[in-house]
């Protein structure tokens, strides 16, 4: 084999390095190495001029590789890999040495020691460079289709955005109807459009796209493969209403159904039948039979021929390249007795209150009583000091004020009392707060250590607070209705999340890779997240993240081909005896058990493997080899260091 020729560049970093490390001494110490063809110091290795010089050096001297000793590879590894590429070298021939964070900054009290350490670090990098061979990225085919899970406002917007990019979309909804939470709201803040109108508009756009498949009553039950090619198995629960049917017949069928169950769409304020639709213009327009509660009495079958109890559960299969999760949130359910919840009949939650105002006209009636004085208790289930939900649900302040103003406008003689812990009506929503103040809404405030109390005095419900805005005076309000402003919590049913192994954050919502810079990607390749499954969001924010996640999901697949990092683990089939230790250690499920000839061995899925190296040390027969971190490479580096 031809002896390698490499170039070594030692950076001053303007003084960040050279103030403590004698860079010239480092240069002298390494220039004698047998593979080092040239060794230079430079004021700023990352500067344009130096990058140009490096390219010229490499080309003029026909170098095989480069080592730059400078700052952390987090900052400039890619910079110098790109320099290598510009000089027609394979980017994996480049080796980085960090002599700023690891030498000059860490040992600013000991210049001699810092210099000595820097020499060792650069020598180790040179040792690694000996083995740094050209590597080719793995290329795999990517299916240009995305599964969007959840057909709420986020899922619907994401599906539309993907469909416009000529990408097949499978929009999967667990419920029988699309629209999610937004379909539940009539009036919305900062827009004149109602939630139902918004859902209708989105649905009408969705059906125009031939490349969107809308699946309702469907759940993903299995997931195989990895980014670029994921095989999803979907369970479709029947609606038990087939074909076309006269709307009048269906209406009759609903009328004759004898079953009454609490209506979750109205947050159990009302009841519905076992054959139902949540609201007249709901999509899809066919009602559904809730088979769990249906008694099979057959009354509906008699009046509507379209009803078909012989429909069977179906399993559908789809192959997609990426999955976009938009599974939404649950509303926090207060604990028994929390601010009188479930113990006092005048206490309801904010979502219930919103449904209540939507379903009433002229007078606000709850449980047969006219409501005039409404007390809103904020941050119930959010910003908890004793509970787990320490986060702020961010949309509820605005939502409450909007509901309060709506109630005041819609009904006569409404007095609103807001028991809050500081208001967060950020951005344009502040106007709503100003409107509510001008309308005479009263705001009472406390800290978390002096929360308001709800007590029953005879038939009266009294809310008391030590109001910090009135010198801590104890103030009481006799409320006809107490509305607990409940925030957003993660979905209790996380089957689909577990299926894709999406990690959760401390708040138990799905976690992104980087809150600021990679806000819609997850550590699972090919799986993006959008909307409130990631954390509390209002509609605008959900749609923002949905559009962003759609773009991200599409960008993975847009070329029809995926490039994956060649820095992965490999298995030596001779040495492997399949003990399963590597499979257990792998955090990415990249190791599969396969049969090769007569032998059972481990195999690495290159598209999923991140090259983290967790498998290597647990392998007893030493069958795992990590590309670019082979035992020989690491040993030679250790030799150079000690």
């Amino acid at each position, binding site marked *: 084999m031809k002896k390698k020729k490499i170039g070594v560049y030692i950076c001053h970093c303007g003084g960040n390095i050279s103030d403590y490390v004698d860079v010239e001494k480092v240069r002298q110490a390494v220039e004698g190495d047998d593979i080092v063809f040239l060794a230079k110091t430079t004021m700023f290795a990352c500067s344009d001029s130096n990058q140009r010089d490096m390219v010229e050096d490499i080309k003029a001297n026909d170098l095989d590789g480069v080592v730059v000793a400078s700052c952390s590879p987090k900052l400039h590894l890619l910079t110098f890999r790109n320099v290598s590429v510009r000089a027609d070298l394979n980017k994996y021939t480049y080796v980085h040495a960090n002599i700023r964070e690891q030498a000059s900054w860490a040992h600013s009290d000991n210049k001699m020691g810092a210099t000595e350490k820097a020499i060792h670090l650069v020598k180790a990098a040179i040792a690694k460079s000996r083995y740094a061979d050209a590597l080719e990225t793995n290329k795999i085919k990517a299916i240009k289709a995305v599964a969007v899970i959840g057909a709420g406002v986020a899922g619907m917007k994401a599906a539309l955005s993907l469909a416009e990019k000529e990408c097949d979309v499978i929009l999967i909804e667990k419920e029988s109807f699309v629209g999610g939470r937004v379909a539940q709201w009539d009036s919305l803040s900062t827009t004149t459009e109602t939630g139902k109108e918004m859902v209708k508009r989105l649905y009408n756009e969705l059906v125009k796209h031939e490349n969107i498949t809308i699946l309702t009553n469907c759940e993903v039950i299995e997931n195989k493969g990895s980014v670029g090619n994921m095989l999803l198995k979907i369970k479709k629960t029947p609606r038990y209403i087939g074909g076309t049917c006269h709307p009048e017949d269906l209406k009759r069928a609903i009328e004759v159904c004898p079953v009454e169950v609490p209506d979750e769409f109205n947050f159990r304020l009302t009841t519905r039948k076992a054959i139902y639709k949540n609201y007249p213009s709901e999509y899809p327009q066919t009602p559904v039979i809730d088979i769990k509660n249906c008694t099979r009495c057959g009354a509906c079958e008699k009046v509507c021929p379209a009803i078909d109890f012989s429909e069977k559960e179906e399993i559908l299969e789809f192959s997609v390249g990426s999955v976009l999760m938009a599974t939404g949130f649950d509303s926090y359910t207060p604990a028994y007795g929390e601010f009188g919840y479930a113990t006092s009949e005048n206490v309801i939650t904010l979502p219930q209150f919103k449904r209540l105002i939507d379903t009433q006209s002229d007078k606000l009636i709850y449980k047969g009583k006219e409501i005039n004085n409404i007390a809103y208790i904020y941050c119930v289930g959010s910003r908890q000091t004793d509970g787990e939900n320490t986060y702020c649900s961010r949309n509820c302040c605005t939502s409450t004020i909007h509901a309060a103003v709506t109630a005041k406008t819609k009904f006569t003689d409404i*007095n609103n*009392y807001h028991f809050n812990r500081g208001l967060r009506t950020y951005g344009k929503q502040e106007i709503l*707060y*100003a409107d509510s*103040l*001008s*309308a*005479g809404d*009263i*705001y009472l*405030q406390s800290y978390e250590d002096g929360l308001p109390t709800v007590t029953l005095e005879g038939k009266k419900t009294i809310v008391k607070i030590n109001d910090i*805005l*009135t*010198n801590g*005076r*104890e*103030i*009481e*309000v*006799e409320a006809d209705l107490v509305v607990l402003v409940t925030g957003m919590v993660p979905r209790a049913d996380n089957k689909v999340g577990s299926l894709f192994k999406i990690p959760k954050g401390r708040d138990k919502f799905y976690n992104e890779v980087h809150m600021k810079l990679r806000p819609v990607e997850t550590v699972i390749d090919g799986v993006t997240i959008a909307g409130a499954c990631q954390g509390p969001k209002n509609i605008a924010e959900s749609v923002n993240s949905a559009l962003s996640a759609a773009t991200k999901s599409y960008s993975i697949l847009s070329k029809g081909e995926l490039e994956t990092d060649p820095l992965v683990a490999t298995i030596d089939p001779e040495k492997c005896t399949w003990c399963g230790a590597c499979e257990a250690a792998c955090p990415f499920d990249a190791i599969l058990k396969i049969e090769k000839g007569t032998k059972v061995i481990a195999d690495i899925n290159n598209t999923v493997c991140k090259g983290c190296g967790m498998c290597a040390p647990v392998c007893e027969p030493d069958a795992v080899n990590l590309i670019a971190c082979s035992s020989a490479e690491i040993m030679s580096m250790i030799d150079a260091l000690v």
Partner: protein
Amino acid sequence: MAKINPKFGKELNKYGAVNFNACYNCGNCTAVCSLSTEEDSFPREMVRLSALGLEDDIKASLKPWECYYCGECSTHCPQEANPGELMMSLRRYLTAQYDWTGLSGLLYKSLPISIAAFILTFVGVMAFVISVGFELEKMLHFGHLFEMIAIGTVGLVILLPNIIKMWYLTILKPKVKVPFMKYVKSMGELFIHMFTQKRALGCDDNQFRWFEHFILVIGYLSLLFTTVALDWFGSENLFVIILGYVMSAIVFVVTVDFVGSRMKKQKEVSKHSQPSDIFFVVWLFLMGLTAFMVRLFIDLEILEMNKWLYIFHLTVLVQWALIIVPFGKWTHFLYRSFAMYFAKLKS
């Protein structure tokens, strides 16, 4: 334990309060107020009490009287909640609360009732002048007599009981214990504030307005003394005559500036002027001017014209003495000084 009264805001709006509900309790108003102190802080606290409708607290408070309406708070309010005007409205509201007759409240809240009262007094004056056959001598004589009777009656029957009610609401009812000697010792405070409005000097850039006000008070009180005690219109004493001219001139010249600023509505203090504010300055101006003219006509012996002029003067005087002094803004002069006195007792 305090109960909220959300209807109170509507009541206060009738006294001229505007948009104070918009307050989001930032406290900028209190921070910029040059009279507010840590122990005695306003106006945010009063805005808050008003928004919640804690009437007992408001009635027991002397703070509305401690404000001299420089308007800085309203200028700096990010919500345009007009804390300055709220304080002014509270003064009107408190005036109505102190007044045992209840007429103050009626007049403040209703412009038609105020106008009716002015017309009624005018009719009374006309009835009187007809009964004396338009004789200037008799009119002057009875006019002078009326002044003395009015001062005594209004003072004893209206103002004194009202001060007692104010004392009851602010000292006795909130159970503030004040030793008797403190009442005596603090008496100085009452007169200093009554004649000088010393506290208003604490407002930023308020020296000129304070001086105008000071001159006006001195001028007004001297004119009152000259006409009532020294019988200016009937006097032959040169000193008395000149004193009357000077004092009445001071009154109408200084009030021209006040009327002008109410009309221009440029300063915070005059942006939201209520009829009661306008009546006060205009009637004061008219009093000074007509008194001056009446005496001038006497001295120039233009008697026939003077008859009509005097009827006009008498009408202004009667309206002043029977409406503005006992039930209108004039009382602020009294309540402010007593508020400072009571505040001293509470301290």
